[in-house]
């Protein structure tokens, strides 16, 4: 949906909200950084990649594909990687500006975002700080029903790994979880997806019901591929096709375990509890495997527990370990700050491994948060500041007003110059041919401009 210019009052409120959010992140020691509005598409499409890549505004210039930035994190981290290729430096960076989203779901193409990235520190303290500044910023805007919903990609990934899925299948499943999260029948949706993942009808056709050795299957398939007259290979070699077919066959061999995985995930995705009961609920779901997850559970819950030191009420926290976000590079805690009706006010997470995709030699500990300023403004109970009535100097010719306007501006007043009186509400000052100034039937010579400024300030008040 094209950007609709907000009214003056709404513009004022959006600006005030952004100013407030920036003030809070600055109070936590974050430095404002600028990232370009136009970025190389490569940054978002090939290397980072996720649902963000689906909704990019792209265009070509000089043989390069460019995009209007859909978010700030990628560019900020790229900047960090360029500055500190060996990592190790702790940086707190914040940003503010428009982001763009070419979605066809009716959401606006352009939104305002304020965000912060805590780079170079990977411990629970960093997580807690980002969560705390997010909640503090939202709470101060009087949004009474805001809740922090928090999960852990690391914990979910580790729990999936227990069922013997290979890395690629884990990766596919993790990105699929976000799609089925809101499906009415999570179990059915997961079963259907997994049955496709494990589909090996060719293998069954070749071997019948009798499973043969991998070598036998490989020979059969080589013969099969060799006999094909087709030249349409779609950029893949026969060896690649064969290797993947064998991998699929191995996957399918553990079919029974995947049924258990569906059962586990269906339950895991439904977990939603308070911080107080989180540890017992999570270990309860993990059952006999819980001992293997002690460290991961501790790592997940310890920053959330620290929030009480920041004055955050436990009532405001919902622990939902399987929460998934739409970026595939999240690697640790993920969170959303949302209203009771589910409107997203802010969101973020830890993304330590992302830097390797941007050219870093190793992981860079990183966690970030992005506030959706337009939504936050809509829910904020903060009233717009009254707009000071503007002052208009009316002069013919216009340049007669230049010197008095400069003097009034020096006195701290906002002044505009016109030839005729404007129709909107304003404080009018007529400039005479002798540079005298008339306001409210009082005449002020130029040398008494200080008195005029005093009267105008009274008028504005």
């Amino acid at each position, binding site marked *: 949906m094209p950007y609709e210019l907000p009214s003056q009052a709404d513009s004022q409120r959006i600006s005030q909200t952004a100013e407030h959010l920036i003030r809070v992140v600055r109070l936590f020691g974050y430095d404002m950084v600028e990232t370009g509005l136009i970025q190389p598409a490569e940054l978002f499409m090939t290397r980072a990649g*996720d649902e963000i890549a*689906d909704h990019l505004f792209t265009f070509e210039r000089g043989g390069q594909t460019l995009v209007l930035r859909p978010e700030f994190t990628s560019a900020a981290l790229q900047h960090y990687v360029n500055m500190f290729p060996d990592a190790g430096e702790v940086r707190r960076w914040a940003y503010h500006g428009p982001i763009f989203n070419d979605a066809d779901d009716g959401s606006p193409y352009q939104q305002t975002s304020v965000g912060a990235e805590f780079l170079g520190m990977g411990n629970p303290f960093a997580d807690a700080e980002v969560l705390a500044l997010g909640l503090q910023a939202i709470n101060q805007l009087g949004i009474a029903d805001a809740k922090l919903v928090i999960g852990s990609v690391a914990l979910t990934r580790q729990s999936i790994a227990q069922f013997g899925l290979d890395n690629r299948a884990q990766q*596919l499943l993790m*990105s*699929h979880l976000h799609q089925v999260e809101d499906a009415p029948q999570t179990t059915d949706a997961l079963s259907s997806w997994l049955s*496709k993942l494990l589909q090996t009808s*060719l293998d069954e056709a070749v071997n019948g019901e009798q499973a043969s050795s991998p070598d036998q299957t490989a020979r059969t398939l080589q013969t099969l591929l060799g006999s094909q007259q087709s030249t*349409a290979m779609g950029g893949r070699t026969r060896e690649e096709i064969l290797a*993947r077919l064998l991998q699929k066959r191995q996957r399918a061999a553990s079919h029974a375990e995947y049924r258990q995985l569906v059962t586990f995930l269906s339950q895991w995705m439904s977990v939603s509890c308070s911080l107080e009961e989180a540890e017992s609920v999570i270990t309860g779901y993990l059952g006999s495997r819980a001992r293997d997850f002690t460290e991961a559970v501790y790592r997940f819950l310890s920053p959330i527990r620290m929030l009480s030191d920041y004055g955050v009420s436990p009532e405001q926290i919902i622990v939902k370990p399987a929460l998934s976000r739409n970026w595939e590079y999240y690697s640790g805690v993920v969170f959303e700050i949302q209203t009771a009706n589910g409107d997203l006010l802010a969101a973020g997470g830890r993304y330590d491994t992302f830097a390797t995709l941007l050219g870093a030699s190793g992981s860079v500990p990183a966690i970030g948060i992005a506030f959706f300023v337009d939504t936050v403004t809509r829910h904020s109970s903060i009233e717009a500041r009254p707009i000071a009535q503007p002052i208009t100097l009316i002069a013919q010719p216009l340049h007669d007003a230049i010197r008095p306007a400069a003097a009034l501006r020096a006195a701290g007043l906002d002044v505009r110059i016109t030839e005729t009186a404007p129709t909107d509400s304003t404080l009018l000052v007529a400039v005479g041919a002798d540079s005298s100034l008339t306001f409210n039937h009082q005449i002020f010579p130029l040398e008494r401009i200080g008195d005029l400024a005093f009267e105008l300030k009274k008028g504005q008040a």
Partner: protein
Amino acid sequence: MANRVMLALPSKGAIAEPTLSFLNDCGLKIEKPNPRQYVGLMPALPQVDVLFQRAIDVLYKVSDGTARLGVTGYDIVQEYGQDDVIVIHKDLRYGHCNLVVAVPEAWIDVENMVDLAEIALDLRERKGRQMRVATTYPNSTRRFLHASGIHHFTLVNAEGAIEAAPTIGYADIIVDLVQTGTTLRENHLKPLPDGVIIESQACLIGNKSALLMDEMTLETVRMILEQMDASMNGRGYSQLTVNILGESAEQIGAQLIAEPVTAGLQGPTIAPIYGSKAQADGRKWFTVTLIVPNKAMPQAVEILRRAGGSQITSIPVRYVYLHESPTFAALKAALAL
């Protein structure tokens, strides 16, 4: 344009001739006074002017209001959907084809869209490039691939001979319209069973503003839909006439109504046969006329025989007009009229 309604029809392509044939069957024959010109008439509805355009231009002409109604492919409407265009009748039952995702037959490891999502990841991570998809349907393709969890692909614009793209080497897979699948097979491609993006056939579209604001357009649509619905309903029925020896019209009627197959649309019409004399047991000959679904014809004949029927004749029904055209009722609901 005042007091006239422009109907845009496809001038060439797979649905051009079938559209004229379909309208003819509906009693809405199109006359084209000059075969070299792109205009025509619909004598059954004199207020209708006909404009022949390419199938995609039918959509644009209806969108910009040049034409108020049009017949085109549903795949085109889905791909290039315009804000002011509404689909009035989605299933005209001809011009069937599917927009499908097809991969090389040699990809014996790829059986569904989940496999394809993995291939896209493989290409990106192992070969450092995106999966290339040749299509002339970029919008529908993009939406479908995203919904299938595939985010890393490049759409390759192609005009004609898309099926050859994986062989020539400028694309890995294709998304294209398929009618019988023969062209795919000849090019060593296979459709993915869960890769059907659009199930398409010919459809009737209209300009929403014109339908909302112009009574004559709406009335013309009503009359067109009456004919279309009646014709399509008629295809499924036959009229049976049978002579039955029975005690009375009431007795025969009750016997036939008891069976859903011979109950007709409202019940059978029963009349005494002129000049027939009562039998020794008091029974007389009656003629029964009723409408029967074609698919239930064998059962109907058996029931009529058991009821004492003979000399059964059947004629096809061309039109079945209901109380109101169901498609027009649905259109009014969609337009909140």
